[in-house]
């Protein structure tokens, strides 16, 4: 006997969630295996971040804090590579640190990719200070005595002996502060580095965090904001490169479409089975 339409929609409502997992898995895998290279529109916030780096005089030393761990590297690692490449391409010299204990290896990887792509060398073109515990205390300390806070760099070389580091010792010596972060560390940099020490700052964050920082953009406490993989993809587009973010956007697009279709299907099924009785107000 053929199933009634109502029975069909009931089956849809009771679908095993493993089928949804399979759909999401395929939606992620297929675009990565067969890239479509969908277009990426640039938002004003990412354009502003790009322009802020463009505005820094060539040869300047900029401060970069890359504060994330592997859990969110899909969003922030491509961003780090793109921003580092932009700095290198403009002959800016980044001084890099991380406030996360599992961050140094990711920073090393990003530096290896960006430096190789732009032909830059450690100590001549960049310095990696490594990890320092203390979050707020470190961010405050950067305004006083960086070489005291980091007596040696990540590789054990005394910072006093590095020519690039001899030119900088506090926020005041950097024309730009760049923070790519997946946590509230960004708030501390805004409060201390940007607001207290009046350093121009650009911020990169995960997509879910990005909207928290919009008020700081309109107050000009940060000059630009790169949000999530989408922001990183926009930055790559501005740089004219195809990195992990642009490749990942195809997968993210398809998974978003799948989620939207699932939500619509769920609502149609609920409506068809009489479970959805539209009313004004009241609880969900």
């Amino acid at each position: 006997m053929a199933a009634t339409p109502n029975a069909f929609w009931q089956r849809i409502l009771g679908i095993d969630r493993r089928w949804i997992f399979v759909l999401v898995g395929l939606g992620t895998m297929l675009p990565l295996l067969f890239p479509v290279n969908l277009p990426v529109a640039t938002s004003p916030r990412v354009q502003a971040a790009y322009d802020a780096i463009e505005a820094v005089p060539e040869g300047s030393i900029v401060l970069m804090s890359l504060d994330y761990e592997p859990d969110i590297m899909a969003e922030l690692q491509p961003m780090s590579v793109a921003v580092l490449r932009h700095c290198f391409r403009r002959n800016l010299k980044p001084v890099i640190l991380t406030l996360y204990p599992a961050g140094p290896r990711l920073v090393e990887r990003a530096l290896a990719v960006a430096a190789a792509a732009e032909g830059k060398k450690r100590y001549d073109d960049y310095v990696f200070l490594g990890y320092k515990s203390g979050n707020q205390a470190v961010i405050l300390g950067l305004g006083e005595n960086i070489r005291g806070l980091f007596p040696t760099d990540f590789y054990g070389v005394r910072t006093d002996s590095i020519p690039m580091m001899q030119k900088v010792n506090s926020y005041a010596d950097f024309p730009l502060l760049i923070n790519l972060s997946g946590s509230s560390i960004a708030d501390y940099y805004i409060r201390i580095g940007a607001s207290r020490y009046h350093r121009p700052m650009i911020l990169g964050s995960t997509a879910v965090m990005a909207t928290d920082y919009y008020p700081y953009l309109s107050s000009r406490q940060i000059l630009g904001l790169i949000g999530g993989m989408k922001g990183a993809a926009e930055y790559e587009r501005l740089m004219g490169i195809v990195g992990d973010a642009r490749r990942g956007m195809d997968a993210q697009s398809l998974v978003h479409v799948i989620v939207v279709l699932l939500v619509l299907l769920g609502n149609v099924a609920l409506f068809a089975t009489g479970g959805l009785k539209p009313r004004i107000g009241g609880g969900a």
Partner: protein
Amino acid sequence: MRFGPIFVTFLTGATLIAIFFIPHRAAQQTQSVILEWADVVYTFALILGSISLWMSHQKKVQQRGEGWIYSTVTLIALAGVTTLGVVQGVGGDTIVGKLYDSVNAPLASTMFSLLAFFIASAAFRAFRARNVEATLLLVTAIVMMIGRVSIGEFLWKGFPPLTEWLLDVPNLAAKRAVAIGVGLGAISTALKIILGIDRSYLGRS
């Protein structure tokens, strides 16, 4: 017995607030010294946390409690990585670096990426247009989900500007209100602790 901690809290809190607003060199030097103290405190907290972690898991292994095998793995990892890190360093060519690249990074990324699967399943079951408010939320979420990814612009040129408006106007207004509320709440809580009105940090209500 309670006067000492309350006085130290008041003195530290009041001094740090004052220093924040005093640009004089002496104030800044005082701040540098206090920052060094904070660094020492953080280091001891790390040591204390590691010892606490070790003791907690060691007890579980000794008593063969539930999940003791995982505690054994934790103890071996804690001891092994700490020893190797101190002896060899943590750079890319070291054993810790290789462990990080081949174990820690993929595991952490995998754990986080599982969220996408559960969010998709939860959205299918929970995102229902049951009333006007829920419908508004549903429509906004769909516009944002489609408009914020590359395919949005491909489907309709109006998606990106629409999402920008949603982010720049309703979202920004709400975020500002929340930020101001959180700020005022933080000031009020800090003042209550500094002035000794809130003493819950002493371990009693």
